[in-house]
């Protein structure tokens, strides 16, 4: 049941959507009479529009109202453009006014709009703007010689950049001949030449007062100027065609002068600053490079370049140690081998061989002696035996038993009596000597006698 009831908010949101999405209510052109208007400075404006039979609430936001070129008044008939929407908190619909013009001057505006469109199409507005010279020597000013404009410009330029020459080209800035005069002065400035900047301007006034600056002839003069043009027409809210064609637009004459010239003290200060910046820049580069150089010099290898060769030195020491120890080892190995060989050599000394040979020789020598001695003694024995035998057989042995041996003078042994003659001299040998005897008688057993 409850679902059948809408909330007020939901309904209001629904209605607001209806307004917002309606194709006709998005952009409405409306004519009516201002009522309930009370100017709220620098704020949104709330009022109503009405005719004989109806009335609608209107709101104009600050940004849109700032563009309005006239002062709206109670009862004034106006032409507005805007859209319809619903303000939810109050549940009221209203027109949100985006543009508002007074009805009645409508034709003038229409002509202006047409000219704007034409010039725009020709490219007068969008053509590249000329750069203002920063340091102008001569500035032409086209304005009324009696207005505040020229005074403000002179004051400002003198204050800021007194070395710039201001040349005033007096012109009518109001009335039916003003446009032609302004255009001809602009042309004159260009013909004379030698100017760096051109300022055109007039003080504030009604839209009709500013009208000459909306004229085509002025627009073309500005556009054809070879000198950069600063336009300062009316108040900030008044935008004329001259403003659109000019290279720069200034809200006030003072602003125009400020655009036209720099401040000399600032230029001088800039130059001084530039000099300082130059010095700082180069100093910084020098410092940077000095730092880089110092850093390189402080690198370990540059600070302690001996590191380049110290490792080598150590390496060499080590190699020498190894060289020495390897060589020493080699010699020691050889020495060991030699000692071993020498020891073995001494063990094999022929001394033993000599001793053995000596022993053997000694035995042989003994045997030689023994054998020889045996030989000799054997022979000796043999000889002795023979000698003894011979001794036994010795005739002398017989004589020792009393036998004698008788020999004659001739020494012939007398074996028989017959060999003896009487008186014969005989030698009788005894065992222990001999006797010389004379045979006295020879007796033979058979009585024989050896007498001769």
């Amino acid at each position, binding site marked *: 049941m409850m679902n059948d009831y809408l909330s007020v908010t939901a309904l209001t949101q629904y209605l607001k959507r209806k307004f917002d999405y309606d194709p006709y209510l998005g952009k409405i052109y409306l004519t009516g009479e201002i009522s309930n208007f009370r100017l709220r400075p620098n704020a949104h404006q709330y009022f109503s529009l009405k005719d004989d039979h109806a009335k609608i609430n209107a709101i104009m936001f600050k940004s849109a109202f700032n563009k309005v070129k006239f002062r709206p008044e109670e009862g004034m008939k106006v032409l507005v453009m805007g859209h319809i929407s619903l303000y939810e908190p109050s549940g009221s619909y209203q027109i949100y006014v985006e543009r508002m013009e007074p009805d009645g001057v409508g034709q003038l505006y229409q002509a202006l709009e047409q000219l704007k469109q034409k010039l725009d199409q020709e490219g007068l507005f969008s053509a590249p703007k000329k750069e203002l010279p920063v340091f102008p020597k001569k500035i032409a000013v086209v304005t009324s010689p009696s207005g505040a404009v020229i005074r403000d410009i002179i004051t400002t330029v003198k204050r800021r950049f*007194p070395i710039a020459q201001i040349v005033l080209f007096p012109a009518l800035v109001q009335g039916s001949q003003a446009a032609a005069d302004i255009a001809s002065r602009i042309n004159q400035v260009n013909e004379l030449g030698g100017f760096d900047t051109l300022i055109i301007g007039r003080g504030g006034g009604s839209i009709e007062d500013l009208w000459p600056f909306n004229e085509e002839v002025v627009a073309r003069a500005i556009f054809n100027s070879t000198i950069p043009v600063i336009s300062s027409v009316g108040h900030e809210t008044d935008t004329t065609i001259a403003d659109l064609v000019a290279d720069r637009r200034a809200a006030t004459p003072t602003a125009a002068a400020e655009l036209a010239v720099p401040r000399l003290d600032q230029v001088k200060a800039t130059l001084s600053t530039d000099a300082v910046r130059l010095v700082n820049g180069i100093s910084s580069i020098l410092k940077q490079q000095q730092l880089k150089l110092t850093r390189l010099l402080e690198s370990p290898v540059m600070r302690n370049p001996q590191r380049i060769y110290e490792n080598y030195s150590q390496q060499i020491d080590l190699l020498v140690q190894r060289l020495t120890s390897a060589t020493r080892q080699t010699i020691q190995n050889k020495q060991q081998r030699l000692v071993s060989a020498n020891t073995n050599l001494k063990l094999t000394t022929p001394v033993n061989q000599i001793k053995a040979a000596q022993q053997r020789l000694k035995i042989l020598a003994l045997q030689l002696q023994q054998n020889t001695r045996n030989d000799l003694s054997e022979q000796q024995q043999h000889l002795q035996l023979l000698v003894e035998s011979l001794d036994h057989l010795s005739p002398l042995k017989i004589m020792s038993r009393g036998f004698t041996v008788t020999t004659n003078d001739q020494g012939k042994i007398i074996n028989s009596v017959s060999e003896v003659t009487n008186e014969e001299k005989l030698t009788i040998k005894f065992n222990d000597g001999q006797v010389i005897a004379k045979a006295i008688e020879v007796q033979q057993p058979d009585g024989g006698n050896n007498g001769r």
Partner: protein
Amino acid sequence: MADSELTFEAKMQQLEEIVRQLEQGNTPLEAAMDQFKKGITLTNELQKTLSQAEETMTKMIDQNGNETDFETSNESDNGNE
């Protein structure tokens, strides 16, 4: 001496360009020195130009090209208004 034929503004621009480049700090040393020298020279020239310039009086040129001093007449004009 071609430089002295340049306008104040051109020189000013050169100077600013030089300052800008030097401040970026990546200019080779010799080039930086050259730029520094040039920058200082420009600074001197510009300073000199400014100091030699004199204050001027406002003039007025009418439709016929006649030139008159404006300010004196200006004040009297003001007085007249």
